[in-house]
């Protein structure tokens, strides 16, 4: 065991403090909102005077929280379909991009990824104006299209990453053994890039679920989305149900993450 010098001690102390601060900033708000959601009080005050499930009961009441339920279902529907369509398009795009070595392919790759950098607020406004010029009225389908543009790059990026890790010799071996391209894709490529696709879908779904800028421009009263509805409640009533929604969302994300880890961990183990 080496003796630690004063320098080491100071170093450890500073790093420890910084880490503690980071955890406080990152995790603190989550803990506060969860604690608040269990309050008995009428207001979003922290700390809660007493703990109860009152606001969760309120949130799940089918009559009083009907608007929230509609918004939540809309959000899940839009996120789910946008992710599904995004997955198909992104996998196809990634397959094509990895096969081409021309410089133009790098340009196309960059433009497919550009929505990740583009200010989403500008995109939301642009989409609204574009669709009004075309005379398309706001609808859930429009929201799906809008979200698709913003979230597909997540899937595209992770799929591309796992495709570049795929050893091309495996596909040569597949062809050499008499398999058609489609057969090779189904039995070699797809199983080996599945964890990448799944990880991208997870990110895409989550990012669609809490996307505000695009929904803000493309939704209306009939197609209300959960984050927009939450903000509306926040502005008007300071309803404690907002904290309960946040609690449910955090729990759902946590569960989804565990499922994802199990799945990709499993596929990782299967693919060696």
């Amino acid at each position, binding site marked *: 065991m080496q003796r630690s010098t004063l320098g080491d001690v100071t170093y450890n102390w500073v790093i420890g403090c910084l880490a503690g601060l980071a955890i406080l900033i990152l995790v603190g708000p989550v803990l506060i909102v969860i604690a608040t959601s269990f309050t008995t009080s009428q207001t979003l005050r922290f700390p809660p005077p007493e703990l109860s499930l009152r606001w969760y009961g309120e949130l799940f009441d089918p009559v009083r929280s009907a608007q929230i339920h509609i918004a939540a279902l809309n959000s899940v529907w839009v996120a789910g379909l946008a992710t599904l369509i995004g997955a198909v398009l992104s996998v196809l795009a990634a397959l094509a991009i990895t096969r081409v070595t021309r410089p133009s392919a790098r340009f196309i790759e960059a433009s497919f990824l550009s929505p990740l950098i583009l200010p989403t607020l500008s995109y939301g406004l642009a989409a609204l104006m574009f669709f009004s010029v075309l005379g398309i009225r706001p609808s859930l389908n429009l929201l799906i299209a809008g979200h698709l543009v913003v979230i597909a790059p997540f899937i595209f990026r992770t799929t591309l990453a796992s495709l570049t890790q795929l050893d091309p010799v495996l596909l*040569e*071996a597949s*062809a*050499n*053994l008499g398999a058609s391209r489609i057969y090779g894709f189904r*039995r070699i490529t797809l199983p080996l890039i599945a964890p990448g696709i799944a990880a991208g879908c997870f990110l895409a779904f989550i990012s669609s679920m809490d996307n505000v800028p695009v929904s803000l421009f493309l939704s209306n009263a009939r197609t209300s989305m959960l984050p927009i509805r939450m903000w509306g409640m926040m502005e008007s009533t300071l309803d404690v149900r907002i904290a309960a929604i946040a609690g449910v969302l955090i729990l759902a994300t946590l569960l989804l993450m565990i499922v994802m880890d199990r799945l990709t961990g499993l596929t990782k183990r299967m*693919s060696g």
Partner: protein
Amino acid sequence: MQPALARQLLAPPLQIPPRVVAISMPMLAAPAVMTAQPLTLDGITHSYGGGLAVDNVTLEVKGGELVALLGPSGCGKTTLLRIVAGFIQQGNGKVTIDGRPIDTLPPNRREIGIVFQNYALFPHMTVAENIAYGLAARGESREVQAQRVAEMLATVQMGSFADRKPRQLSGGQQQRVALARALAMRPRILLLDEPFAALDKNLRLDMQIEIKRLQRQFALTAIMVTHDQDEAMAIADRIAVMSQGRIEQLGTPVQVYDEPATLFVNNFIGSSNLLNGKVEAAVDGGYRVALANGAVWTVFSKARFEPGQPVVVSVRPEQMLLADEPAPDRIPVTLKLSLPIGGELIHDVISQSADSLKVAIARRPGMASGGTGTAYCGLAGHARPALFPASNP
């Protein structure tokens, strides 16, 4: 009998009793009945961008023969292999199997088996699934697949590994699976891409014997690509030494070693001493050569040389000797170093004209060094030095 056997084979392969393996062995005789098919490369030329990778290569591999393409990296041997496999469409030339051209066939319809350099086993599949892959792709029934998998596992003596994943296997075991996977398709031609490069030295000999055995058993016409001359010498029937996209020499391992056609082949295969000299006169079946360091040797050669022409004489270290007495055909040398390498003692000696020579002599037990000081270096009685024009690079 058939359903019962199928049921047995469909059971988890770990439980296949050794008896079944023994029964399946005679079935292996079946493929041997197939006649081996010759493979012909006719004027193959291929270039990448600017450089010519393969330059007008013509090679006829007889049915059941194993030809090694031997050469340094970049000599075009791998390109040639990939052309035969169909992964590269050659710029020019024709590949035929048993007289039928295969150039227009895509890789998945060529019925050529390949053992890839790093085996390219499918990492997410078990050994059994790997071996069955080609059959499954072809739409064979599960019974046929299971039967062939069991047969192949028995052939490569991997019966108890059917349910393992490739990463749970050693290098040698992975290679056996790769072989089984290729042979399960009953290919006509087997291509081996640097098959022993990733194996431990001790394992290499075992796998060389194994591959040779399977190649004979399945009557396969085979091409092996390697940069390792020992591998090529060990298992090839003939060796094609390649350099800069061309075949420099095609011959049996003994021919290539004993009678190298060019200086490149001479230097690439085995080690040799190169001595500069001049042709003095033609003698019966060869030439009398005056070496720059004073000795005069008679060297047999079928090539034509003019008297006075500068030449390079090449002698293998094991074809030289060290003696105590001088003679006209011996070079006075000073011993620098002696290395006991296995059964041989390698002497590093230096002549008065500062040529460094290697002399290998069989080592007697206990012998560790050849002493020091001055000696006379000459040709052993069995020596067959080779003669090349000096201008040859």
